[in-house]
C-alpha cells in the first residue's frame, strides 16, 4: 500500500528529473522551493508513533521557512539583479543530462537495497531518493553554465543530504540539525555575494567568463 511518505519520495525524484530538463530559471527556482517545502513536511510523515513531537515540528517548520521561502527569495533577487531568464545549453546538453539523471536514479533504486545500513528502515524509498537527489544535484553543479543553476544544484545536493539525515533524525540532536541549516544559509549567502560580483564584473552570470580572469 503506497503511503503518503512514498508519494512524497516519488515526487521529490520527479522534481529532480524535471530540474535536469528545465531551462527556465524562474520555474527551476520555484520547483526547488517546492522540493524544499515537501522535504520540510517529510519528518512529520515519517513518524512511526503518529504523534508529532516538538523536535519534529521545529525541524519541519525550520526547513519550510528556510528552504521554502527564504532561499528562493534570495535567488529571485539574484536573477532580477542580473536580469537573466534562461539557462543556456549545458555542457552535456539537456537530453544527455536527463538520460544520465535517470540512469543514476535507476541504479540507485535497483541497488540501494544491497547497501549495508545501520537501521533497517520501513520506508524503502528513503535511501534511493536521497542518492538520486544527491546525484541530480551533482549533475546540475557539474554541467550547468550559469552560476544560478549551479547554486540550485548545490541546494538540491543539500536536500539529498537532508533526506539521508532523516534516516537518523530520531538520534540526531537538535543542534546538529540547526547547524546544517545554518551552513546552508551561509553558503547561499556567500554565493549570492559572489554572484553579485561576477555580474558586476562581466554583466552576465555565465561562469565560463570566469576563465577570462586568468592570463
Amino acid at each position, binding site marked *: 500500500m503506497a503511503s503518503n511518505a512514498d508519494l512524497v519520495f516519488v515526487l521529490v525524484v520527479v522534481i529532480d*528529473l*524535471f530540474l535536469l530538463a528545465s531551462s527556465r530559471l524562474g520555474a527551476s527556482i520555484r520547483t526547488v522551493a517546492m522540493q524544499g517545502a515537501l522535504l520540510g513536511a517529510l519528518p512529520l510523515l515519517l513518524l512511526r508513533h503518529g504523534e508529532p513531537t516538538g523536535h519534529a515540528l521545529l525541524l519541519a517548520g525550520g526547513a519550510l521557512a528556510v528552504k521554502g521561502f527564504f532561499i528562493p527569495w534570495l535567488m529571485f533577487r539574484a536573477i532580477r539583479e542580473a536580469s537573466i531568464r534562461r539557462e543556456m545549453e549545458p555542457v552535456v546538453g539537456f537530453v544527455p543530462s536527463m538520460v544520465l539523471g535517470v540512469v543514476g536514479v535507476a541504479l540507485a*533504486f*535497483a541497488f540501494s*537495497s544491497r547497501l549495508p545500513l545501520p537501521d533497517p528502515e520501513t520506508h524503502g524509498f528513503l535511501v534511493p531518493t536521497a542518492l538520486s537527489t544527491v546525484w541530480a544535484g551533482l549533475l546540475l553543479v557539474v554541467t550547468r553554465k550559469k552560476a544560478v543553476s549551479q547554486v540550485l544544484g548545490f541546494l538540491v545536493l543539500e536536500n539529498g543530504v537532508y533526506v539521508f539525515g532523516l534516516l537518523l533524525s530520531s538520534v540526531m540532536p537538535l543542534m546538529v540539525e540547526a547547524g546544517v541549516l545554518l551552513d546552508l544559509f551561509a553558503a547561499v549567502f556567500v554565493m549570492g555575494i559572489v554572484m553579485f560580483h561576477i555580474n558586476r564584473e562581466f554583466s552576465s552570470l555565465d561562469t565560463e567568463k570566469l576563465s577570462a580572469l586568468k592570463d
Partner: protein
Amino acid sequence: MALRTLLHLAALLALPPLLLGIVNRTKAVFAGRVGPPLVQPYLDLAKLLRKGAVYSRTTTWVFRAGPVIGLAAVAAAGLLLAMGGAPAALSFGGDFVLFAYLLGLARFFTALAALDTGSPFEGMGAAREVTFASLAEPALFLCLLVLARATGTISLSGMLGAALPAAWGSAGPALLLAAIALFVIALAENARIPVDDPNTHLELTMIHEVMVLDHGGPDLAFILYGASLKLFLFGAILSRLVFRGGGALAAEGLFFLGVLVFAVGVGVVESVMARLRMVRVPQLLVGASVLAVFALVLLLR
C-alpha cells in the same frame, strides 16, 4: 460477451470524429467563440467523400496507397484494443507490440505518400514526423511495460482488464507517472500542441498537416478519419488506465466518460499552451521516456 465486443467495435467506428468535434469546441470556448457544432467532423467527412480527386503528375501508386493503408492499419490496431474493461476482439501475449507496429505501418506509408509528391514541404514534414515518432515509440513501450509489470500480463486485454484496479493499489505512483507520460505521448503521436499545431497554415511550421497537403476528396476523408481513430485509440487506453474500476456497466460508463474527458483535456492543453520549438520536442519526448523509466524501475526493484 460477443455482444459487448460488437458494441465496442461499433463505438470504435462511430465515435472518433466526435472526439475531434469536442476538441475544437473546447478550444472555441476557451477563445470566447461559439465554435463549430460537435458533429462538424462527420459533416466534413461526408462532404469529402462526395468530392472528386486531383492527383499530382509526380505521384505514383504509392500516393494512392498511403491513405488506404494508413486507415486500414489504424483500424486493424483498433481490433486489438480492450475497451471498458472487457477483452478486445483479438488478444494474445505481446499484442501491444503488434499494436504499436501497426501504427508504425500507417506512419511509414503516410511518409512515403508525402515523399511521392516531390514537394520539399512534404518531405520536410515526413522527416520531422519520422524523427519524433522514433523517439515516441520507446516512450510508448515503456509506459505499456509499466502497465504490464503492474498487472502481471503482457496483453492489452490483460493490462486494461480486471487486474487494473488492484494494480493501482499496489503500484499507484508508478501508474500515475505512466499515465502522465502516456498523455504526453498521445499528444505527440496525434500531432497536437505542444508538438504540432493542427491549426497553423504556415507550411514551414507544420509536421502532420503538411504531409497530407496534396491529398483531396475521399483520400483526405480516409486520412481525417484515420487521425480521429488514432486519437480515439490513445484516449481509450488513457481513459481505462485512469478511470478504472467498477462492475461491467459502471466500467463501460466510466470508460466512455473518460474518453470524452480526454478530448476535453486535449482541447484545454491546446488552448493554454503554445507549440514548442522543434528542437525542444525531443527533450519533451525524452522527458516522457525518463518518467516512464523511473516508473518502471519503481516496479522492478
